[in-house]
């Protein structure tokens, strides 16, 4: 349902309070300025997130989670998105956990989901190999070995993968890039033979990494093996959760803009009294409200198992991309010169915005997908 229940309201309020207290934007600055981009998060903060139960929100109760659903995890990520909180929450408790929930055997769930829910490990989902999100183009080869499989190939710009204890990897057992039937999901553990990770110093100072696999031992996810359907559903869920995080980032950017319009004086007037700026603020507000409806609807559709969830996810990500893009540009422009300085947060919001826009699909990717799903 569109309206939050009591548990969800409590979860959101707790997240709001914790983020304001423990993870303000200054925490990201500190991480950046102390070389923290290599690991991407503050271990003490991550431990607290797990203690609050955030790592088990979508994990079934049988494996130590609360099974509150995707809308609920979206509420938490929206709050962390407000202050650009760097953490492996989305990669671990969103993307990788989803692949295990949807595709894992009971033994794999027992082995990994319980640890994710308990906050004992971090995990990542590695799909894309090129500059743009395009899951069907997976080329990485999976070959059968005596004890399982081995993976050979590369993965590009994977969030929170450098230091992850577990990586869920998409690779193909047959076919060529573009052919979805040969794709399977695999589990690779940290330190596996032939696996090397190169941490990337990206504009958002979050922990992204390039991965290289050279005959790296891997375990097939699921039995007889999770393929394209599980991967698509996993990506949909991770995408909707990212859109929720972006909604928080855009909302915070807007609130900072609004505050400035109400305090900055020029020509003896508060600049928020100028109609040119009022109308731009009102238009941005309009886009935020429209986008929020899409993000809520996508997460609700996932929780309800609705058939139109894929279309709603593409709608949510495309709108979140566009709206966060607009908010981040306006955040710089409406602040004038101060918005160009490193001392102001506007630049941090714009840099994170572009990374989030590209992850899990640009607007044009999702528009094309929406049209295909609609039959035109």
């Amino acid at each position: 349902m569109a309206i939050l229940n009591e548990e969800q309201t409590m979860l959101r309020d707790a997240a709001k309070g914790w983020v304001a207290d423990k993870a303000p934007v200054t925490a990201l600055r500190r991480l950046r300025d102390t070389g923290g981009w290599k690991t991407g998060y503050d271990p003490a903060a991550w431990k607290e997130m797990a203690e609050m139960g955030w790592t088990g929100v979508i994990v079934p109760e049988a494996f130590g989670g609360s099974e509150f659903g995707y809308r609920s995890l979206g509420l938490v990520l929206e709050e962390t998105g407000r202050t650009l909180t760097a953490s492996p929450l989305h990669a671990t408790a969103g993307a990788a956990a989803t692949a295990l929930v949807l595709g894992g055997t009971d033994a794999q769930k027992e082995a990994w989901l319980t640890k994710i829910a308990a906050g004992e490990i971090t995990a990542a989902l590695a799909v894309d190999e090129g500059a743009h999100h395009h899951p069907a183009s997976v080329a990485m080869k999976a070959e059968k070995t005596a004890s399982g499989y081995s993976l050979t190939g590369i993965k590009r710009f994977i969030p929170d993968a450098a230091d992850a204890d577990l990586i869920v990897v998409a690779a193909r057992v047959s076919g060529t890039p573009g052919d979805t039937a040969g794709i399977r999901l695999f589990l690779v553990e940290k330190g596996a033979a032939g696996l090397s990770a190169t941490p990337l110093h990206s504009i958002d100072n979050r922990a992204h990494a390039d991965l290289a696999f050279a005959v790296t031992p891997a375990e097939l996810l699921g039995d007889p093996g999770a393929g394209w359907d599980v991967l698509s559903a996993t990506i949909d869920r991770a995408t909707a959760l990212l859109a929720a995080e972006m909604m928080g980032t855009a909302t915070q950017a807007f609130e900072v803009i609004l505050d400035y319009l109400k305090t900055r004086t020029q020509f003896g007037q508060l600049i928020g009294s100028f109609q040119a700026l009022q109308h731009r603020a009102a238009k941005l507000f309009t886009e935020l409200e429209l986008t929020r409806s899409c993000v809520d609807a996508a997460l609700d559709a996932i929780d309800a198992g609705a058939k139109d969830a894929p279309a709603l996810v593409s709608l949510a990500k495309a709108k979140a991309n566009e709206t966060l893009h607009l908010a981040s540009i306006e955040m710089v422009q409406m602040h004038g010169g101060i918005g160009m300085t490193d001392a102001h947060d506007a630049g941090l919001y714009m840099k994170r915005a572009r990374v989030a826009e590209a992850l899990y699909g640009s607007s044009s990717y999702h528009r094309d997908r929406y049209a295909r799903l609609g039959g035109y």
Partner: protein
Amino acid sequence: MADFGTELDVFRTETREWLEANCPASMRTPLTAEETPWGGAKFKWANPDSKIWLDRMAEKGWTAPMWPREYGGGGLTAAQARVLEQEMARIKARPPLFSFGIWMLGPVLLEYANEEQKKTHLPKIVRGEIRWCQGYSEPGAGSDLAGLQTRCEDKGDHFLINGQKVWTSYADQADWIFCLVRTDTSKKHEGISFVLFDMTTPGVEARPIKLISGESPFCETFFTDVKVPKEQLVGKLNGGWDIAKRLLQFERQNISAGGFGGAAGLEIEEVALAHVGSDNGKIADGDLRARITAHKMDARAFALTVRRVEAEAKSGKGLGPAASILKYAAATLNQHKHELMLEAMGADGLGWDGDGFDRRNVRETRAWLRSKGNSIEGGTSEINLNVVAKRVLGLMDHQ
């Protein structure tokens, strides 16, 4: 809150059975412009089933489902009204009545009118007996509505009204008018009153205005020494501005909830596939396809927002801030849709009339022209943005 699941289920079953038994077959087909049921004393029913459907629905008060029963309404709770909506949608039932009385006047009469006025006017609105028009804009008072000059003088036993209104929707077909008039020239907002009167009163003249679409849905309306009984003042003398603003909220909500789209319009992606061609099922012009898709996604975002606003309102939290953006968003969206539709039709969309053009395409072309009014009527988009900036975002006036 008295609706427990089971009671609501009983209501749903009864409603479903009643609709099945009472909704004529032709009223379950898409509504056409010619058969739009406006009602009123002068109305000519193009399809007799429309009148039967109206009378049956009005008998139950379901043309105004949530109005109190004592004024002819259905007396339904919000949850029951939602069920009625869903059950009507299930059999694709047409709305029984299109009415400014129901959408705009009725809600403010319920709030501001005295008992006698409610008893006099509301039941006739429910039954579609009286068609109302709205006397708001004037030649010198559009966006600055409170600058209106139509004079209303107190002549002891009656009011005397002189002046001119413009953009009066369907004034030539209306039976009565709800009208903003100036009762004090020394003040602006505090000098306005809200009066009701019969359009057949001597001195009232409505002249249709021909629009760029060829249609004449609006009139210039002239008042020359129009005598109006004083009991037809609604609310307090010089207290009309609050009523006017409240009514505008209902008008914008109504525009917002329904959007501007015609019920039986063509689907833009189908038009594009038919006129531009298909490339393995995709619209062959990639650039047009991308823009149509972006529009379709915006339209979905809008529909989801209407649903969210309704859900929030029904949860008892009242209208959230999202409600304020709907009129502006609806206007922008509808105009964009019609521009894309025209582009997709190509030469087939450039017909005004006559042989050589499909009637459905001509209708879309006329609708494109009509849509240009969407960002002007009911408050321009610029005024809407001012309202959002000031009332919702708390931005201040220029000093």
